[in-house]
């Protein structure tokens, strides 16, 4: 299973036939492994890794730190539930350390996100304070090095 996940992580579009060859299994076995992983929620989905700049629809991403007053019985969940309802929010994490929740937010530009934080997040009941960190450059994203210069293979052909 570990190898299967690793291969799909590298390229989720590998066909079952290709995976079967690499994993030394039958196509049916691979299909079942994937189905089972999906059923159990081990595999939660498949994503496209997009270079937004090349797509021509520039996008800004920010990491928003939220300090939250925990609610009786449900702790941070109430606020987390509210935060993750917004389409602008890509991910929400409960964090250890000096703040409580981390939200990854995308928008068309800096102003877009600033408005979203000021109007939607900061005003949520239970949110004490926010800190917004904009991503300026992506060097590596989900294991993929984004700068093509860095991925050039400098090995020479050797016999």
């Amino acid at each position, binding site marked *: 299973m570990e*190898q299967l996940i690793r291969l799909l992580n*590298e390229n989720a579009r590998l066909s079952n036939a290709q995976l079967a060859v690499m994993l030394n299994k039958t196509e049916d076995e691979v299909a079942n492994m994937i189905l089972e992983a999906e059923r159990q929620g081990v595999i939660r989905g498949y994503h496209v890794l997009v270079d937004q700049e090349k797509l021509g629809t520039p996008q800004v991403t920010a990491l928003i730190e939220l300090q939250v007053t925990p609610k009786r019985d449900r702790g941070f969940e109430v606020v987390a539930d509210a935060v993750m309802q917004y389409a602008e929010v890509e991910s929400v994490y409960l964090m250890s350390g000096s703040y409580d929740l981390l939200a990854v937010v995308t928008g068309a530009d800096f102003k877009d996100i600033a408005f979203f934080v000021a109007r939607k997040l900061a005003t949520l009941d239970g949110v004490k304070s926010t800190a917004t960190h904009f991503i300026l450059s992506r060097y590596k994203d989900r294991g993929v090095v984004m700068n093509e210069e860095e991925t050039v293979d400098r*090995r*020479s*052909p050797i*016999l």
Partner: protein
Amino acid sequence: MIDYDRILSKKAVRLRPSGIRKFFDIANSMEGVISLGVGEPDFKTPWQVRAAGIKNLERGETWYSANAGLAELREEISRYLHRRFRLSYDAKDEIMVTVGGSEAIDLTVRALVEPGDEVLIVEPSFVAYAPIVSLMDGVPVAIPTRAENDFRLTAEELRAHITPRTKLLVFPFPNNPTGAVMRREHLEEIAAVLRDTDIIVLSDEIYGELTYGAPHVSLASIEGMQERTVLVNGFSKAYAMTGWRLGYAAGPKPLLRQMLKIHQYAVMCAPTTSQYAAIEALKNCDADIRKMQQEYDMRRRFVVFSFNKMGLPCFEPQGAFYVFPSIASTGLTSQEFCEQLLYHKKVAVVPGDAFGESGEGYIRVSYSYSINHLMEALRLIEEFLQELDRR
């Protein structure tokens, strides 16, 4: 003006230039070529090994080592050879550290070969053996291996090539470029031929960690073989350390003594920083080797399957990181196939005849690349074949 042609060593000038150089110079000058030509791992040297090298540089312990290599490294090599291959070599005088496996090959030939001595070279194989033999005025004698024998050396073929002048057998398994391996039973047959002779074997086991299906068996571990074998190995392929230039030879004392003398005059010692890094590799990297080996194995199955599917019959390699599909069905020579593939699809593979005449009709494809890279290259090769059919 100096007429260099007049003063250069005839022996050097006569050495066949690597025919493949020209081909790759063209490939390198083209934009966007997808190469399957490398002969080294695509993994980085494990981090803790690099860290050990950095630590050595930070401490500034960058002086020469003992000629034979750091005593601690030789101890670790001795332990490794025992742990992996059940071999017993005395770290003191039966192991020496060299500048890559290449230097160990060079030293073995130089310490043994007299003018006119015949050196048997199993082919197809790594390109350096015959030129080194020629530099010693030895006579390289190729023993071709065949696909129908799984590119193994058979006892009959070996016997048929032995003459009273045979001094050395170059025995390169797991094999570059075919990926062939010799299992214990095959080694026993070879040993039976050699045991009553004075022929020394240069057993180049640089790909010894990269076998699939069953662990590598060293020729030196077969009864009666240790006293007639120089075992060459190194860190390049197993630990992804090609640029560190570090290898070693293990063999009989009297032979090593001569090799060490030549080594001492030629290069003094192997790079010290690399030696410190290699100690870390041998001590703490067995798991890293296994992980890389598993990754290669996955790619190997995929590449073999893909070639067979597209109609280029491919022997299933059991070692190294190359496949060696036959391109005979295309009607092209190896060189023609590779040139046309490069021009039409910008994919670079190595013509099989670069590894000896018996490699004609084959191409060498390295799978030391990411799955995504391999998929793209294989797709283009398949397209190329379909267009060939239509022409």
